[in-house]
């Protein structure tokens, strides 16, 4: 290699030296980031640089989308309108019965003196960037800590759970989809209430239920919903449908298809009410604590 400069030209350190320096720096960063999670502030800083670029890159597609939607035929609009009207009617009826159920539920909970579930408020977000990293299933949405989004909050679409917020930047946040390899979600089978944990498969947009005995009561087509015992995902949200079961080992190999349109939608909802595990209510004064304890034990006895 004759790329060594003559000594009378000043070029600074040789390429090899520079390469070693930056390679070392990158390795240090990787270790700090992956093992110690010590680089959050650096990430936040760099994300402020990247976020406007992402917006800018997204702009042409958005414009195309908008102009495309401007030129819709009236017939299509009408038929869509009719369909939506019908759906709205059905949902209004459902909503009415749900309101009644909610009221009843609140009343029953009050009687039992159980901590009332907080109202779940949601933030609607739009996907700005679907990560192109083939190793992980992540998307970036357009709202961040400026909209009270915190890491750990669940993300939903109109059908069910899509994933969970894993990193929050000032103006963006990163959502890890349920299909990501390291993502887990506690579920239960609607048909019989069996609890399990669903893990992302990592490769072909599927979920797995590991650690289920080969003779577990589970069938193809069973619906899985969140069980709510983790305190992160509210109970009863659709997660997946069992699509394939192989029972030839000690543990069954169960594959499920996610219910929510994980790769379909542009808008997502993030639940900002239930980010933390629900804490048991702290009694304000010892007298009321006693009464609530007393009631709780009464309920338990009745249960027994």
């Amino acid at each position: 290699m004759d790329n060594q400069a003559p000594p009378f030209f000043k070029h600074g350190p040789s390429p090899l030296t520079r390469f070693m320096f930056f390679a070392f720096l990158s390795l240090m960063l990787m270790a700090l980031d992956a093992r110690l999670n010590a680089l959050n502030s650096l990430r936040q800083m760099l994300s402020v640089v990247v976020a406007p670029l992402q917006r800018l890159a997204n702009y042409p597609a958005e414009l195309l989308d908008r102009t495309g939607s401007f030129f819709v035929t009236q017939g299509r609009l009408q038929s869509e309108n009719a369909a939506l009207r019908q759906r709205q009617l059905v949902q209004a009826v459902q909503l009415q019965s749900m309101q009644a159920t909610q009221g009843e539920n609140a009343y029953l909970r009050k009687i039992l003196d159980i901590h009332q579930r907080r109202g779940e408020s949601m933030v609607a977000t739009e996907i700005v960037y679907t990560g192109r990293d083939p190793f992980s299933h992540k998307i970036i949405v357009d709202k961040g800590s400026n909209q009270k989004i915190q890491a750990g909050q669940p993300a939903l679409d109109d059908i069910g759970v899509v994933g969970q917020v894993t990193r929050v930047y000032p103006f963006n946040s990163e959502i890890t989809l349920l299909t990501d390899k390291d993502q887990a979600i506690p579920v239960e089978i609607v048909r019989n209430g069996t609890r399990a944990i669903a893990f992302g498969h990592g490769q072909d947009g599927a979920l797995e239920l590991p650690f289920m005995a080969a003779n577990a009561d589970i069938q193809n087509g069973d619906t899985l919903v969140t069980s709510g015992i983790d305190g992160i995902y509210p109970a009863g949200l659709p997660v997946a449908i069992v699509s394939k079961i192989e029972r030839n080992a000690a543990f069954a190999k169960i594959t499920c298809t996610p219910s929510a349109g994980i790769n379909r939608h542009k808008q997502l909802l993030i639940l900002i009410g239930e980010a933390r595990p629900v804490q048991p209510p702290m009694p304000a004064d010892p007298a009321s604590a006693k009464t609530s304890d007393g009631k709780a034990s009464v309920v338990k006895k009745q249960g027994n």
Partner: protein
Amino acid sequence: MHLAGSPELLKPASRKFILLTLACGLLLNLLPWYGLALLFRPDFVALILLFWAIREPRKLGFTAAWVVGLLMDISDGAILGQHALAYVLGVYAAILLHRRIQRFTLWQQATHVLLLLLLLQATMMLIRMFGGAVSPGPGYFLSCLTGTVLWPAISQLLLLPQRGRPDADPVYSAGHK
């Protein structure tokens, strides 16, 4: 035309222009790629970095490559340092080979670039697999092929501003022949 063995004389590229092209590459990478297009999407930033490392090895700093790599890591939500290390490695290899690669025609250069791009992708894959990721399959390397095909076009495009008007100076062109 750019013939083998007779590199044309070009105006030097300014550092500002190099940084501008890198920013454009980053923008192209950040476009909302989807599905099949995503599978075939070349890594524009890597291509542009390699181009400048081969064309102007003294002007493209390792620092620029490293910082752009970090920005890519952030936008992908990857481990911080994955793209940075791969880009720095690619730039280093390109700088080592730049005298050799410059002698070839654009399509012959593209074969060298294919190897460099494969090196980049393999580095990133190794980093991720050390981190416990599952292998994404051979489709992961498709983007290298698209990058190789795009190389002549990108080279011509990036050289445009450095090229003066043809035969602007008859004495120079006569002397050059």
